[in-house]
């Protein structure tokens, strides 16, 4: 028998009896970050391949959700900080060995890109921008002025904004290349961030980066599939999703094989999911509802059975969110000592 106890009466909030320093704010950000990364990746990919008219939901409409997800995600991250007034210290230095530092700077790069992407397509998405509400129109008037024109009844107020819009519209492929690289870094760094904490055996696997990337891209493909009104585009994203889900299932199985072939702390971490307290939430909600059932539905859809597209899409999004909640909560319970 072996019993290891702290006998001096330590009872630090969030550290004892189990570490629980990251709460709901972090999984919400990880989900929104992965979603935004995937949305921007697909938008940029089709722009580079010249298919922005053919797959116009993916390139023009879905990116509206990217800045929204990023702003909400960044707000969640800010709420998680315990020394909030000093958050600006993140941007006074870049530390290449800290994945959290990369993340802070990548977000600084991707957020403006996502706003610029949406703004550059705004004339196509909403040619008639004025609403019936006086207050909303007043807010719009900060950046935009009305114009007499039967097609597009508005224009940017300031000249440098109009010139910038023209510059972006002439250099879409260049912007798309930068966006693709930035979105892949955004999608993968969240997993690399967790895997850099060698003190949490559940997270300390190099598969986590690519697993989070695949999961983020899969949620974005599901969103594109849901939002698109073009059946060809829905079929395309359905096929993307099938491939991404199969890769994700493969990575999850491999991750567990790796844990079980590792040291005792990793085996204990894997046992949390193989009979421990996270068994049901992982295998039923994340793998079952989030991956396997949508996979079956999408394969059936391709064979001709018609299922409302919202169903697999919502399941994939919920599965992605619960995956991050489970990983963050379970990871903090795993440890080397005591």
């Amino acid at each position: 028998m072996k019993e290891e106890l702290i006998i001096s009466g330590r009872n630090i909030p969030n550290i004892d009896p189990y570490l629980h320093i990251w709460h709901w704010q972090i999984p919400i950000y990880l989900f929104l970050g992965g979603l935004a990364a995937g949305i921007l990746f697909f938008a940029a990919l089709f722009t580079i391949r010249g298919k922005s008219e053919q797959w116009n939901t993916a390139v023009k409409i879905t990116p509206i959700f990217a800045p929204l997800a990023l702003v909400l995600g960044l707000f969640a991250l800010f709420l998680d900080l315990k020394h909030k007034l000093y958050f600006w210290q993140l941007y006074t230095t870049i530390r290449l060995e800290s994945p959290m530092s990369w993340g802070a700077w990548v977000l600084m790069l991707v957020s403006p890109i996502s706003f610029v992407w949406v703004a550059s397509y705004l004339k196509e998405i909403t040619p008639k921008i004025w609403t019936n509400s006086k207050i909303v129109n007043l807010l719009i008037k900060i950046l935009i002025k009305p114009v007499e024109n039967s097609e597009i009844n508005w224009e940017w107020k300031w000249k440098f904004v109009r010139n910038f819009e023209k510059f972006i519209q002439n250099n879409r492929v260049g912007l798309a290349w930068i966006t693709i690289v930035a979105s892949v870094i955004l999608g993968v760094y969240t997993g690399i961030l967790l895997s850099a904490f060698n003190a949490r055996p559940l997270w300390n696997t190099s598969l986590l980066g690519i697993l989070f990337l695949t999961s983020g891209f899969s949620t974005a493909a599901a969103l594109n599939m849901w939002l698109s009104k073009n059946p060809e585009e829905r079929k395309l994203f359905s096929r993307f999703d099938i491939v991404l889900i199969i890769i994700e299932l493969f990575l999850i199985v491999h991750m567990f094989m790796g844990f079980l072939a590792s040291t005792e702390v990793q085996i204990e971490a894997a046992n949390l999911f193989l009979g421990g307290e996270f068994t049901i939430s992982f295998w039923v909600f994340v793998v079952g509802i989030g991956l396997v059932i949508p996979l079956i539905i999408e394969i059936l859809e391709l064979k001709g059975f018609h299922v409302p597209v919202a169903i697999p899409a919502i399941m994939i999004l919920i599965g992605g969110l619960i995956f991050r909640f489970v990983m963050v909560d379970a990871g903090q319970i795993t440890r080397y000592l005591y």
Partner: protein
Amino acid sequence: MRYAMAIDTKKCVGCSDCVVACQTENNVPIGYARDWVVEVVSGQYPTNLELEIRSERCNHCDNTPCVRCCPTGASHIVEGGIVLVTHNECIGCGACIQSCPYDARYPHPEGYVDKCTFCVHRLNEGLKPACVSVCPTKCMYFGDLDDENSDVSKIIESRKWKTLAPEAGTQPQIYFLV
């Protein structure tokens, strides 16, 4: 200069004077602790029952995961290998807490992350850390490992020792004499 600590587990009685001294010296908030005492009971009565008592704290590692993961550089290493946190550079993100295998760090109620500092303010005046100074069984040794005449260096040469979780790769600098 490489500061390190050696603690004789055969002489430690688990009185927790080191815990109270540290809390008093460093104004640690109530309920929080920069160091703590662990008791390990192993084996079976009457054949091989064993008891080990350890006073643990931040190990001021040589290969610190906490300094590596800090996004602002608030966690840093000073002369002597002591790991410190600059309070007004810390954003309270908790990355260092996640990366420490010894659970040595804690979030201070004021927002920054805090931990054992080897009483660097006492070292600057030529004193030993508070915990080492008050130990009633004198089982704690502190000094410079690079100086072969310091009591830490001499005790490490003469006794068997172990470190905590060496498989975590952190190269901790607290040696438990067994």
